[in-house]
């Protein structure tokens, strides 16, 4: 096995959407807790002990989101205390905590996703779907640094011509407006030239190839199949009303029977798949190094 980030981008995308899809589809606390723990665990496995600021940010977000619901929603029968003539109920508090856990968990997963899916991989995925859109994306990405470099050149040229002094605010603003205008004209003209050059080289006559070749290997297939099977088991349990909970008016949850357990275990394995892949790759690497 390879580490999770080295799998085929399509596999990674499918995986992220199956995990977060279940989390957003089902509000059963056990599954939500799994999403949350899995997301945080993988984030820590990837980043180690750094990024404490994002952990702090997510924690504060969690607290705010958990407290919003009991302060606004007054459904539920178990009153904890009364604030400003409005009852604060246990059910609303639990609901808030559950929702907050779901949102922060999904945020962690997408933070992982953003770290793994570099723009190049995303272009590969969109390219498989729609080559033209992928082309627009990749050109736009390339234009941003190009515009910056060009605007530095224009600004230098303008200064060399003595067209504006930077210590005078009015002059500065007018000068920058002029540079902006020059850049726009240049960018549009340059775009046309690029397009003509592309057309001259036969753009659109055949299939477009990629700079990086992501192959679909056997490991990708295995990972994808595992993902789909686990997803199907869990989805079947949810569809069969085995994993249900109602917060209002009184906390009422389906009993944790055999069907519910299978679904939960399947989801638990699904959530841990990247950590498993990562650990396996790490151990294998240690083993190979020890043989040298």
């Amino acid at each position, binding site marked *: 096995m390879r580490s999770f980030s080295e799998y085929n981008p399509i596999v990674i995308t499918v995986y992220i959407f199956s995990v*977060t*899809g279940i989390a*957003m*589809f089902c*509000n059963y606390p056990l599954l939500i807790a799994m999403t949350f723990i899995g997301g945080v665990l993988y984030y820590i496995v990837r980043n180690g002990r750094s990024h404490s600021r994002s952990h702090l940010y997510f924690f504060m977000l969690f607290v705010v*989101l958990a407290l*919003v*619901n009991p302060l*606004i*929603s007054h459904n539920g029968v178990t009153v904890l205390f009364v604030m400003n003539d409005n009852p604060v109920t246990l059910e609303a508090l639990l609901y808030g905590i559950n*929702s907050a856990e779901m*949102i922060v968990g*999904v*945020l962690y997963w*997408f*933070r992982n*996703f*953003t770290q793994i*899916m570099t*723009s190049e991989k*995303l272009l590969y995925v969109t*390219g*498989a*779907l*729609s*080559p*033209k*859109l992928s*082309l*627009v*994306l990749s*050109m*736009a*990405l390339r*234009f*941003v640094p190009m*515009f*910056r470099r060009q605007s530095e050149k224009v600004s230098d040229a303008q200064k060399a011509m003595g067209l504006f002094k930077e210590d005078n605010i009015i002059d500065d603003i007018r000068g920058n407006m002029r540079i902006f*205008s020059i850049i*726009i*004209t240049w*960018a*549009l*003209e340059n*775009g*046309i030239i*690029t*397009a*003509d050059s*592309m*057309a001259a080289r036969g*753009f*659109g006559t055949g*299939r477009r190839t990629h700079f990086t070749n992501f192959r679909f290997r056997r490991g990708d297939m295995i990972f994808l199949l595992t993902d789909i099977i686990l997803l199907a088991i869990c989805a079947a349990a949810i569809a069969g009303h085995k994993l249900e909970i109602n917060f209002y008016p009184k906390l009422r949850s389906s009993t944790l029977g055999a069907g519910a357990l299978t679904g939960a275990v399947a989801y638990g394995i699904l959530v841990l798949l990247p950590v498993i892949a990562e650990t396996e790759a790490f151990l294998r690497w240690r083993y190979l190094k020890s043989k040298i």
Partner: protein
Amino acid sequence: MNGIRNRTLRNTIRVSVPFLIVPALTLAGSIVFDRKRHIIISLAIAVFSLLLFAAGFEKRRTGTRRMVIAAVMTALCFAGRFIPFLKPISALTIITGIYLGGETGFLVGAMTAVLSNFYFGQGPWTAFQMLAWGLIGLVAGILSDPLKRSRVFLLIYGAAAGLMYSFIMDIWTVLWYAEGFDIKLYIAALGTAIPYTASYVISNVLFLSLLAKPFGEKLQRIKNKYGV
């Protein structure tokens, strides 16, 4: 992999999404699921509409020049999102929609959302942002003639687009949090979003009043000179 370039798949998407999938999803959403599932249904519909657009875009023989101009505008929007407090994205999308047509406007809005979220964080909301910004561009393209003629109307449209963007994104916030539409939460969300909404409206009006004319002239010139 041929993707949507594959003709049968493309046609299947173009026929099945508006006539079968979206109605079926909405119906299934209201009948089979209880109100907890709204978020998934709205997300699915957003994704399918984007897919529909992609299929249509793939079919049309859009000229290379137009595509590159769209990429240029996307890059400008993307760079503009780094300006603190004032966001020129909607304004630039509207200008693109007016001068290059609704489809290009939609394209620029949607692509900006995807690209800039690499820096601002991808998430399920990306689909909604793509749709919201895309629609702002698309409607600007449809209203192209009156928007070109009347400056006041243009500024009003800009302000309305800022408000609409905030309203749409807050529906999504509430759906995500409460798994059902709760009007009290929605009002609370709108309340906390007031500074952002104000900044959207102000930036749209400001950038449209500053940029619409010079930008429009430049795009018009490119169109006349090269026949995009």
